[in-house]
């Protein structure tokens, strides 16, 4: 039995046992996979719980579902590990009401770039097979190859499905809620060792953090963003960018009298327009960098194929190091919501705090 069929059976059993009333999982479309919400047992066959592409971040969709009111029915959401971390992060930001939501996550084989999938479809079974043989497929996205947490983590989400290093996939609980759920389903918890699969990604990540860094200040950043259209797709797809009103969307902030532009052109020997193109990315880094969970959707959404995850992922990693914070993996409060009275003295004054 493949993992997808196993999960479908799990969903069907759940409906029969009455432990849940709705399921959110991926469903196939002509060229891709989107999220679908079902409430009836008969609709289960329309789902493909483990899909080879990630078009949207599932946590962002859960945010939309619980935006006005908590979930009124018991919802099982099947999310990728990065989505479950986003879920955790958005719960901390008070963007998702976790009541009545059970999150199931699994050992992730990675996802194919949505555009590549459209022209060159592949099956998730193939990706899973490569994962089982201990190899990261060369088809998966850059952000998946350097993923820091490709497997379920205790405390993030409720139920985990272990696929690597085991003959039969095993379910295990990640929280008390999940333990109860599995007990209600009559499923005994299993175990498997995922350390080699995680290590493979961490090694890639170490190398990637060193090699792909954008340096050189203005020149480096301008070259990196030279083909940017200023379309703001990266912001729209980013699950952490949940603000209703964005500083960079309100263009009246950047309205000036014409003389201002001419004076700039005088001073700087010519300016590029619009003037907020690179500033948008720097500003977005400042706003969401501390909570970047590394789903890489900014990079997938870029119409000009700018490897944006190298910007947000690597600078985000630096930011998270400063605050000793790992987004979405534990219950720490996000740095932008918290402070200590005695900290960060090296950022005060000109030479690090001393009088």
């Amino acid at each position, binding site marked *: 039995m493949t993992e997808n069929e196993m999960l479908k059976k799990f969903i069907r059993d759940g409906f029969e046992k009455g432990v849940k009333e709705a399921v959110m999982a991926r469903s196939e479309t002509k060229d891709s996979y989107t999220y679908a919400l079902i409430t009836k047992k008969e609709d289960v066959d329309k789902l493909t719980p483990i899909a080879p592409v990630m078009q949207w971040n599932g946590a962002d969709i859960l945010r939309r579902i619980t935006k006005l009111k908590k979930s009124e029915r018991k919802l099982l959401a099947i999310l990728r590990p990065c989505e479950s971390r986003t879920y955790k992060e958005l719960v901390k930001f008070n963007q998702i009401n976790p009541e009545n939501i059970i999150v199931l996550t699994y050992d992730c084989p990675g996802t194919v770039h949505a555009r590549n999938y459209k022209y060159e479809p592949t099956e998730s079974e193939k990706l899973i097979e490569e994962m089982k043989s201990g190899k990261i497929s060369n088809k998966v996205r850059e952000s998946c190859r350097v993923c820091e947490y490709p497997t379920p983590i205790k405390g993030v989400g409720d139920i985990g499905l272990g696929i690597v290093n085991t003959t039969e996939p095993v379910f295990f609980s990640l929280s008390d809620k999940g333990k109860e759920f599995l007990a209600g389903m009559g499923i005994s918890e299993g175990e498997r060792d995922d350390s080699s699969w995680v290590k493979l990604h961490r090694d890639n990540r170490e190398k990637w953090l060193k090699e792909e*860094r*954008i*340096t*050189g*200040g*203005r020149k*480096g*950043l*301008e070259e990196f963003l030279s083909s940017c259209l200023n379309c703001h797709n990266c912001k729209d797809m980013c699950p952490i960018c949940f603000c209703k009103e964005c*500083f960079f969307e309100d263009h009246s902030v950047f309205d000036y009298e014409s003389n201002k532009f001419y004076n*700039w052109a005088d*001073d*700087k*020997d*010519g*300016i*590029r327009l619009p*003037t907020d*193109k*690179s*500033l948008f990315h*720097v*500003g977005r*880094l*400042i*706003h969401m*960098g*501390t909570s970047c969970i590394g789903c890489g959707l900014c990079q997938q959404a870029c119409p000009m194929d700018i490897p944006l995850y190298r910007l947000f992922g*690597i*600078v985000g990693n*630096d*930011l998270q190091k*400063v*605050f000793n914070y790992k987004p979405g993996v534990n219950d720490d409060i996000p*740095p*932008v919501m*918290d*402070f*200590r*009275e005695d*900290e*960060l003295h090296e*950022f*005060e*004054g*000109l030479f690090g705090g001393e009088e």
Partner: protein
Amino acid sequence: MTEKKFDPVIVGFFCNWCTSAAADLAGTSRLHYPASIRPIRVMCSSTVDPVYLVRALQEGADATILGGCHPGDCHYITGNYKARRRVAIVKTVLKSLGFDETRVLLEWISGSEGPKFARVMNEYTDYIKKRGPSDFKYLDSLGGEKVD
């Protein structure tokens, strides 16, 4: 024609309760501080979204100062702690992209510290004069080849 002397533009965001009062005190005490400082009075150091710091840098400032009350003395109890975290974020982003992070300065100057205000402004202006024009100013422009 002789080369024009570099006269930096430094934008200062000063909190209403401490650093702005210190600026007043420095003025009434007839202490000298450079005219390159362009002060903007804000109600609290934490009202300054860090994006405004980088935006000032891009639109022509060579450096920015965020001035607030000493930790523990904030008029709004905890504003300056939040400001410190935000400045830490801006400085880290600038540094990791290879910009000069000393272009953003965070200083605690209380209302009675007029002499400290004048000293900090003098020292920082001298420092920026030595560093030369800011690299960030030329982001998305055609010029600035000689700036490093």
